């Protein structure tokens, strides 16, 4: 054991692909990675989320070819043809590469007027918002990114909704893909970005793949970006996503992330309020079971006065699952009249579940109102008793209480279509992890006290 030196984890899983990279930005990222390694538990930002599952594999570049039927089925499952999002423009990536044939409106991807779309592949440019020198997983993405979606919305354009779907099509070998997305909104523009990460669930057993997306969001003056993300990766998968958002004066970045899948998942948000009166919402929920580890990490920087930040995260953990929340609110001296709020709550449903939370305030301005809170507990016996005394079977009572706990945070998301997607995904996960709503009784899973 290395007791002292903060030696990172070995880059062996990716070593073969890191050699011979010549592009200067990518090369610098590789240098950075080689210097620090993949973050180990002694790196403060990763103290609760260990990248052990990545070790012992050699991740190859994910295949460009896939079974269109299987992928199509996965798409239909997640985005029903009769659903609210059926006619919404969708950009589909399979294994991190843009798949025009699956995207709609077909092939050409005609997006609303004022919205331009480009593949990252076409002209790889790395947005300066991302900081690979500080986040090793972003360095990894920078080194290995092949494709991604680059959207920009012109000034004053209300672009409506766009769905961004990532489908993993795992083969037999461990593979990874590192898509690089960017969204930029001109002054007064608006966009609802609905992001979905699913797996084609091709076959037997767990899939060993690693999805490592980076998304940069540049929100212009008075612009509003709504971002919903539903993460339903396959069992066995690792999903480590990083989002950067820069929000200009009176702009807003309103986000919600729902973590349900993957063995190891992390949704990391770096939001910077760089103009006065800007607002950011980083809300989210996780429902995890088995040995899943789900991490929601955020760093919100108030770099301008009169800004608002809001974070409400709820975790429900069953079996041996572990939830992690790390939230940092950093208020610069210039950011007077900051209004920051952060709340992380967890419900532990099994004696083996665990939650680790680190809500952090770093404040250099005096005229601020910042608070955070965290609570952890089991289901309330009195609430259960109340329902039971009214004839609700125990399993169903539990489901009702868990669902209510999570719906409260889903209510923070206002967009109808996004909400519908969240509800569907959550409903399925609740049935899987907690028990079905009707005729429950027997199949309630582990209901031990």
């Amino acid at each position, binding site marked *: 054991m290395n007791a002292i030196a903060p030696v990172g984890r070995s880059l062996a899983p990716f070593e073969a692909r890191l050699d011979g990279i010549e592009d200067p930005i990518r090369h610098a990222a590789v240098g950075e990675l080689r210097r620090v390694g993949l973050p180990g538990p002694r790196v403060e930002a990763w103290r609760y989320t260990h990248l052990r599952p990545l070790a012992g594999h050699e991740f190859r570049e994910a295949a460009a070819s896939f079974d269109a039927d299987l992928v199509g089925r996965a798409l239909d499952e997640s985005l029903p043809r009769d659903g609210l999002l059926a006619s919404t423009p969708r950009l589909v990536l399979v294994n991190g590469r843009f798949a025009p044939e699956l995207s709609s409106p077909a092939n050409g991807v005609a997006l609303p007027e004022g919205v331009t779309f480009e593949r990252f592949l076409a002209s790889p440019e790395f947005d300066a918002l991302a900081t690979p020198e500080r986040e090793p997983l972003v360095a990894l993405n920078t080194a290995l990114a092949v494709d991604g979606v680059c959207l920009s919305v012109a000034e004053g354009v209300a672009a409506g909704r766009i769905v961004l779907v990532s489908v993993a099509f795992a083969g037999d070998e461990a593979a990874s893909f590192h898509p690089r997305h960017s969204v930029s909104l001109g002054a007064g523009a608006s966009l609802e970005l609905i992001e979905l990460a699913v797996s084609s669930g091709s076959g037997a057993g767990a899939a060993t793949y690693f999805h490592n997306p980076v998304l940069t969001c540049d929100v212009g003056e008075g612009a509003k970006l709504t971002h919903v993300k539903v993460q339903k990766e396959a069992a066995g998968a690792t999903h480590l996503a990083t989002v950067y958002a820069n929000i200009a004066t009176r702009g807003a970045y309103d986000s919600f992330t729902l973590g349900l899948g993957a063995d190891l998942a992390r949704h990391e948000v770096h939001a910077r309020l760089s103009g006065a009166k800007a607002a950011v919402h980083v809300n989210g929920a996780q429902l995890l079971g088995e040995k899943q580890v789900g991490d929601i990490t955020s760093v919100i920087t108030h770099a301008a006065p009169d800004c608002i930040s809001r974070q409400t995260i709820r975790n429900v953990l069953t079996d041996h699952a572990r939830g992690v929340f790390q939230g940092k609110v950093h208020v610069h001296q210039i950011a007077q009249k900051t209004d920051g709020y952060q709340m992380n709550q967890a419900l*532990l449903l099994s004696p083996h579940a665990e939650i680790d939370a680190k809500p952090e305030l770093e404040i250099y301005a005096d005229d601020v109102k910042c608070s*955070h809170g965290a609570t952890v507990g089991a289901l309330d016996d009195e609430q259960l008793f109340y329902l039971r005394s009214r004839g609700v079977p125990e399993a169903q009572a539990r489901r009702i209480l868990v669902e209510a706990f999570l719906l409260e945070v889903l209510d923070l998301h206002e967009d109808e279509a996004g909400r519908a997607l969240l509800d569907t995904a959550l409903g399925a996960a609740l049935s899987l992890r907690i028990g079905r709503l009707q005729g429950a009784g027997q199949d309630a899973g582990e209901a031990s006290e």
Partner: protein
Amino acid sequence: MPAVTETREQVEKLGQSSYKWGFETDIEMDFAPKGLNEDTIRLISSRKEEPQWLLDWRLAAFAAWQTMEEPTWAKVSHPPIDYQDAYYYAAPKKKAGPKSLDEVDPELLRTYEKLGIPLHEQALLAGVEVPEGEEARMPIAVDAVFDSVSVATTFRKTLAEAGVIFCPISEAVRDYPDLVRQYLGSVVPVGDNFFAALNSAVFTDGSFVYVPKGVRCPMELSTYFRINARNTGQFERTLIIVEDKASVSYLEGCTAPMRDENQLHAAVVELVAMEDASIKYSTVQNWYPGDENGLGGIYNFVTKRGACRGARSKISWTQVETGSAITWKYPSCILQGEGAVGEFYSVAVTNNRQQADTGTKMIHIGRNTRSTIIAKTISAGHSDSTYRGLVRILPKASGARNFTQCDSLLIGDQCGAHTVPYIENRNMAARVEHEATTSKISEDQMFYCRQRGLSEEDAVGLIVNGFCKDVLKELPMEFAVEAQKLLQISLEGSVG
């Protein structure tokens, strides 16, 4: 904003004058040579006529220390400390150990008198000779530690009659070796952390308390630490053992002269509470904080930990941290016994260039263990203050309960206040609640006080005292009064 401008001006006006404990006592001292190596440790050990096991223990700690690196995770910054450029042993020259107060160097007695620490037990017992302007106090037994050694311990006879042992730890090593050997390092192991290892290697004195079964300690016990000599580090070690159904309340105070250099204070405090035992440990930390430009002051890097070993045992830490250039301190409770209770009440005030990174750890191991954390942080001037705390609920701690509240108050726009709580829960039948707020003094509150005729300074003083009330009320009476005064003084110029 006029209030802010005024505050800033006042902060700027604030000089060293407010630290009234900054005098130096001129007394003949006995030093070990500068620097830290095995020979220094052997010298300390032989000066103190220690048994071989303790020397071995120290050397093991030193060996561990040499492999360790100074922790860097705290939110404090200072130039590198040269551990070879300090004296590790400094003691007032004396003949044999003083048998009574009469034999204590009168210069020392005068020092403690000046500090307001009563070493004359008779006078106090009789209730006479109360100096003018001072209120009569309840008797408090005092162990006075001057640089590296304990110079006097009062009321030992009264305490002995009750069965309570209260003496310098070096004496305890001699007189109660089995007790010391059994418990020393059992709560804070020698290799626990960099500063604890350093302390274990070179600790010189400190207090030892043993309260036997069923005894309620008849009076408050207190240790008063004074750094006096130049270039010395102070490394005291306190060990308090409270047996079944016994209880004790212990107070700790400290001051140092004003100097331009930084001096290191790395203490270790170990508490052990057995079944139904209760320990209340109160600290008013008032080391010299350095001047308004951050020159000088004490580096206060302290490891304090209590083990609630028995069922229903209770350890309560209360601290008022106003001094030190840098504070690095996390009084903790290991709640092993079923139904054990840990409490942490803290007020940390930083002004000028002071830095404080302080908080607590509550480790819930046993069933139905409970902990409460109330931390109030006040930053003024150019200072930085951090609350860093850990609440860890282990799988067996069913029914465990924690409540944490951290509030920060910022005075002026050049300071920082930070909150870094870690919450780790591995038991579904445990409840953890944490809340934290950061704000400035509200204009409504100010307006309310001002329109009732209070001056701005008085109003701020009143509001700050109210802000800290939850903690101050936990202090024993005399300390509470002193702490309130200290709050006023440390915030002088920035508030009332």
